[in-house]
């Protein structure tokens, strides 16, 4: 054997030993940690969720009960090839995760409590409901799956769900891309014999069986592989904890307010020793004369433009001297694209003063699109506090305060809602894609038998918050869909405001942990939606 080959053999051995040493080291550290069991359980939960979808599909295949895709598009081809054959009337639902997710039920059989099964059971054995919705299903994907589903069988009623969130993207996931050019066999209603499986040498299937077999063999023999996922999660958490004893997280600060150029920051400037209402206020302390400090809020779009608005708020001061500007300041963005900063009439007195209100009604000659609030303490020294800032647009009468977290409370008892907001360009895309989808549905309706419907799915709505922050854009979206449906002879089902706050729950993890998730609803929401659909599609 050549010397370099002998050396390589030695290196190979050393590589293996290094690998083994690291694996043993990590495994030892992992199992020593009392929290390791939680990571193993978490990994098993993830693995079960991943496996359960193919397990569910296998079970459905065996029972000829394939009416939905539990694999979220990965095995859509298999699903379509094996759609349940039945002489009953058929209804097809096609939408996104809103029609397949129950946010209060993650069990493997949660589909039994979903809108499609609830709808089916309401018909008492007369109807089969197919639900080919998928998480994140885009318009392009809906078109493909709708086309292929109709190749497979004739549906009596087809309901396509179209919401703004779904209409942002037009990409197609691999599982759906691969069926784009496939021609599926048609199942006639009368002919429900099981489809013969024709023999073909499926290389992909062979490869995936080999891969799966090798992986299982390794997992059985090496402990490291068995708990690889759990060790990975544990390692990542330890790495995060190296930053400090606490794992990395976003510190608590007043929702929607940020400060700069002063002694305190977003966290420390949100104080609870002084307040006008509630338990908190926003503080600025300046020790340098020349700096310009402020607290800034987030831009808020008015639901409806108006030319008249009341702006105001409260402030308290202590030893304020030589201030150039100590006031409330609002940026007004107008519908015509121009903007103005308004602070006149909203200035406070220097010195030491208790809580003082400033309020003024502003009348403009053009319509206001949005407001951005700010509280200024420019130049000078001293300490000021701000609380209860408001901007109330005037329509026929004075409206509600639009400023986010106006009383600067932490809202820990009130769940904050993760509201959805998009830039104008994104809304343009949403409108374009939604129109495209309705036109497609109309084309399908003219070519195929069956009644076609477009459904606007439910979203979080409450007195305080709306799921889509730009509610007026949502209204425009609905108007457009209505018009498009009329032009295409398709009926519109508007379930947007069907559900209330009680149907939605908060995110369990991630950066939005604790915030209400505005899109997905629970079991009761699915029941209510099923009833709504039935009442509106049956004469």
């Amino acid at each position, binding site marked *: *054997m*050549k010397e*370099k*080959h002998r*050396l*390589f053999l*030695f*290196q*190979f051995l*050393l*590589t*293996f*030993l*290094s*690998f083994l*040493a*690291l*694996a043993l080291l*990590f495994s030892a550290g992992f199992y020593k940690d009392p929290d390791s069991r939680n990571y193993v359980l978490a990994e098993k939960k993830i693995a079960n969720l991943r496996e359960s979808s193919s397990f569910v599909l296998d079970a459905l295949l065996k029972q000829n009960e394939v009416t939905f895709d539990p694999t979220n598009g990965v095995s859509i081809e298999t699903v379509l090839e094996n759609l349940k054959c039945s002489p009953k009337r058929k209804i097809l639902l096609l939408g996104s995760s809103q029609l397949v997710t129950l946010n209060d039920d993650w069990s493997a059989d949660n589909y039994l409590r979903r809108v499609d099964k609830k709808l089916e059971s309401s018909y008492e054995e007369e109807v089969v409901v197919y639900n080919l919705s998928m998480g994140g299903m885009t318009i392009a994907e809906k078109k493909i799956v709708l086309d292929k589903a109709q190749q497979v069988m004739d549906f009596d009623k087809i309901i396509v769900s179209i919401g703004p969130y779904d209409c*942002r*993207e*037009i*990409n197609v996931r*691999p599982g759906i891309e*691969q069926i*784009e*050019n496939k021609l599926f066999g048609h199942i006639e209603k009368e002919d429900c014999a099981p489809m013969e499986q024709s023999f073909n*040498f499926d*290389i*992909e299937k062979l*490869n*995936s069986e*080999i*891969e799966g077999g*090798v*992986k299982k063999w390794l997992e059985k023999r090496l402990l490291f*592989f068995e708990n*690889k*996922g759990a*060790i*990975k999660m544990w*390692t990542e958490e330890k*790495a*995060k904890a190296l*930053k400090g004893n606490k794992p*990395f997280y*976003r510190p608590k600060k007043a929702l929607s307010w*940020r400060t700069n150029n002063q002694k305190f920051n977003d966290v420390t400037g949100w104080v609870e020793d002084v307040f006008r209402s509630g338990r908190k206020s926003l503080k600025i302390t300046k020790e340098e004369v020349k700096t310009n400090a402020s607290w800034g809020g987030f831009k808020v779009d008015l639901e409806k433009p108006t030319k008249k608005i009341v702006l105001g708020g409260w402030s308290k001061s202590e030893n304020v001297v030589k201030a150039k500007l100590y006031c409330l300041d609002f940026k007004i963005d107008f519908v015509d694209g121009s903007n103005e900063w308004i602070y006149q009439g909203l200035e406070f007195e220097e010195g030491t003063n208790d809580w003082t209100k400033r309020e003024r009604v502003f009348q403009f000659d053009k319509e206001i699109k949005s407001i951005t609030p700010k509280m200024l303490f420019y130049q000078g020294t001293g300490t000021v506090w701000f609380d209860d800032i408001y901007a109330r647009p005037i329509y026929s009468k004075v409206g509600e305060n639009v400023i986010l977290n106006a009383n600067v409370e932490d809202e820990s008892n009130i769940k904050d809602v993760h509201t959805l907001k*998009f*830039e104008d*360009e*994104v809304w*343009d*895309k949403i409108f374009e894609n939604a129109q495209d989808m309705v036109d497609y549905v109309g084309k399908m309706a003219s070519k195929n038998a069956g009644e076609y419907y477009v459904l606007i799915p439910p979203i979080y709505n409450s007195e305080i918050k709306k799921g889509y922050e730009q509610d007026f854009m949502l209204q425009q979206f609905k108007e457009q869909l209505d018009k498009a449906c009329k032009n295409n002879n398709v009926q519109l089902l508007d379930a947007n405001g069907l559900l209330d706050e009680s149907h939605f729950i908060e995110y369990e993890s991630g*950066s939005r942990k604790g915030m209400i998730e505005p899109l997905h609803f629970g079991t009761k929401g699915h029941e209510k939606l099923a009833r709504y659909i039935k009442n509106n599609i049956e004469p």
Partner: protein
Amino acid sequence: MIFSTTIFLVFFIVVFCVYWGFLGMVKDENKRLKVRILFLLLASYYFYMSWNPIFILLILFSTLVDYFAGKEIYNSTSKKRKRLFLITSLVVNLGFLAYFKYANFFLDTVNQISSMVSPDGGTNYFLNIVLPVGISFYTFQSMCYTIDIYYGKMKPSKNFFEFSLYVSFFPQLVAGPIVRAKDFIPQLKGNKFFKDINFQLAANYFIMGLVKKVLIADNIAPISDALFSDPAQYGTLGTWIGVMAYAIQIYCDFSGYSDMAIGVAALLGFKLMENFNMPYTATNVTDFWRKWHISLSTWLRDYLFIPLGGSRGTKAMYHRNLMITMLLGGLWHGASWNFVVWGGLHGLALILHKLYKTKVSDKIQFSKAPYVLYNTASWFITMVFVCVTWVFFRAQTFGDSWQIIKNMFLFKESDFSIPVGFYLLLLLIVIGHFFGVKYFQKIEEDRNHVFKRPFFQAILWGIAIFAILLFGQDDNQAFIYFQF
């Protein structure tokens, strides 16, 4: 079958053992050579069919056409006849490419134009076409065979199986490097011996490729995916981080694949060309294209730029030739105007750099310290330009591209919170990159360098393999360049 999967490992172990072990027992040298070529050919076809079996017919057809065209070109005495067979080869290969890759692009463009001019909404043409994996690579490879024969740079292969293996050799079939026939076919002539395999080099390349692809590219992908799927939600800082993440991802993904291809080929006794040479150390865009996707850029230079006229003729003609090459080079990457814009921007930058070089920088003599500053500034500007152009490469639509460019250069605030660890990771990558330059440049200068620290190297391999197994993503993200 992606290189970083278990199934490929099983496949390659079988191929390796049969190739060196079982077939190595054939006594007759000529027979052994032939049998090995045939075996590798069948293995390569199996490898390709694992993506989509039906498209093997395309490769076979392309191979047959080019093999016989090559023979006819060489044997013909009439220039007209030679040209006829060359054109046949080009038409077949480019025809496949045009149909499978660009048909819907052209139809979509027609639809868009007609919708602008027609009062009733315009046309809506569309063809249901599936893009065969690797078509952009093997058609280019096949074409350069007939072109080289036409220009007298090589003789045609006498053995159909040799030529077929050249077209479909599995390590570089689906994502390059694009291999030249005159470099590869001679490697099929002589028998290969197990004792000549440089295992250390092969292992270095393969493991480095895995680290880049599985450890870095796959793990950094979610950051860029998040930005490009919803650019409007991000502020300036988040956008820059997403764009830089994509720059790292595409480099690590593609160069990682090339490294693995080189390593796998080396284990079978074949030498493939280097495809990347630390492109993010380039101090100008010309230098960048000498270091990025070298097999493609040299192909475009030799088979497009030079036949167009190259740098001969007037400056205007030179610039025109350069721009056409880069526009078509951009289009090669994808059937979308985004890619054309990407190529066009690079073409423009190349022209401007050439002008700048001849009129300004060649006339300046730097002493040491100012040269270092100048070089650093050049590198920075080049990297900003490259990152900005990647936006067009990755974004799904023009609208998204403009949104991202706006976010990058017009300050936009967001409440995006970046973990400190990410900055550390970026710093490590940048530092590692620069030190890596020195290390790999040393390897290039002295291939035996790998033997100088074998223990350290083996431990590094062990750490790398452990990290790949622990931190590699479970769902294999297909290589970015597989869409080509």
